[in-house]
């Protein structure tokens, strides 16, 4: 089975802090994705990556950046956290086009 592991289940940070969310997958998948999930808004794509050192903006990239230095790891960075970034963050990976994305269990991030 594919395993996508997010480093923290719960995280509390302060406004203005730089925040790192880490995601690791163990199936040598090419593609990795970061989403946020908010009540009433569903899953929204922040950034995705096709390969090491490659990144593409999703639908809501403002206030975020990403890093993919190794194939198995995809990091989401909040450069200067703000309260409107309080959310559930979900990482996913997939091998190729038209294959299901596999998700981690999410990081619930609170910015105070």
């Amino acid at each position: 089975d594919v395993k996508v592991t997010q480093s923290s289940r719960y995280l509390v940070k302060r406004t203005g802090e730089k925040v790192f969310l880490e995601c690791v997958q163990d199936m040598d998948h090419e593609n990795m994705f970061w989403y946020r999930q908010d009540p009433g808004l569903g899953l929204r794509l922040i950034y995705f990556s096709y390969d090491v050192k490659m990144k593409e903006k999703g639908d809501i990239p403002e206030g975020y950046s990403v890093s993919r230095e190794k194939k198995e790891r995809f990091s989401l960075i909040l450069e200067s956290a703000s309260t409107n970034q309080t959310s559930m963050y979900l990482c996913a990976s997939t091998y190729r086009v038209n294959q299901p994305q596999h998700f981690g269990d999410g990081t619930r991030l609170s910015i105070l």
Partner: protein
Amino acid sequence: GESVGLHLPTLSVQEGDNSIINCAYSNSASDYFIWYKQESGKGPQFIIDIRSNMDKRQGQRVTVLLNKTVKHLSLQIAATQPGDSAVYFCAENIDKAAGNKLTFGGGTRVLVKP
């Protein structure tokens, strides 16, 4: 427990009955569709997928139907069990040029009554 969505449509089903969850998709050019299940406090879990060259696909207790004419997707769960209580999302591959980028529906909450 954690709430995935406060304003989701909800389907209440008696244990043992069949459930049907519906989804309207947006792009007639989409060629791949997925159903996910999300339980409280967990990430979405893959249930079943279907490609546009099919109109029906069956899994264990689940069937997905695709009607391309009206851009409609449905998930049928046979003999619904308490463990089926969750939020269900459909997703479509809306932009093949962007690789495996998916667009998700808003979700439907299924509540199974004992």
